């Protein structure tokens, strides 16, 4: 499996910014280190199923709205059907 195939894409940074939360605030709520949030956002670390579900629970969203095996479509495109600048 190639590196790109193995990568889990996520919307964590967008959701966090939307709610005006810092990495530390999210990390404290989830009981993990704030660096881990940064590594997940950057795609350098794939969370365990347990952590992914905990994150989904924290944001009150289904896990597939936050994590995906395919690159994420911008929320504006997904909700309003607006084309993304990259044309995705």
């Amino acid at each position, binding site marked *: 499996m190639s590196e790109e195939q193995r990568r889990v894409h996520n919307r964590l940074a967008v959701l966090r910014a939307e709610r005006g939360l810092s990495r530390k605030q999210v990390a404290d709520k989830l009981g993990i280190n704030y660096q881990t949030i940064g590594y997940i956002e950057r795609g350098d670390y794939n969370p365990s199923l*347990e952590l992914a579900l905990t994150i989904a629970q924290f944001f009150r969203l289904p896990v597939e709205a936050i994590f995906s095996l395919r690159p994420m479509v911008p929320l504006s495109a997904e909700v309003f059907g607006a084309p993304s600048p990259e044309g995705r």
Partner: protein
Amino acid sequence: MTTTISSRIEYLPRSRRRLLVAAALIGYPVAVAVLVGLKHTSLNRWLILVIFLVLMLATAGLVGVGYRYARGRIEGRGARLDERDLALRQQAYALSHRLLSVILIAATAAVAVYVTSGNTLRLDANSFLPALMWVVVYIPALPALMLAWIETDQPADV
């Protein structure tokens, strides 16, 4: 002051961290080699001792940087380890084991070649003590140094 040094070490880019780890790993063998090499020169004994001590102190400092970077994540002491830390610790231990295996196999092979080439291997305190010191200095520090070697750059603190 301590916090500034800690956060500077924490945010060291991986390329620089790897240089420090490499320097820490070769520091002790270099110090011993310099000591052995200078022993046969006419240089003042005190000066040789000073050079050796400076090299050793630099090595100890670099090993200290490795420990500081690991922030107790290897021993799990004084640090709350999450799943990424635990995975990283496991990788660091695995890499330490691999590196140690390579060093031991290389050393054994070198000794075997030396002995089978008709040479006599004499083990005395002068040759045994540096090897023992290497074990004492590096084996406990190896996982922390490997953690500093493998971890990717810290994400910007936002």
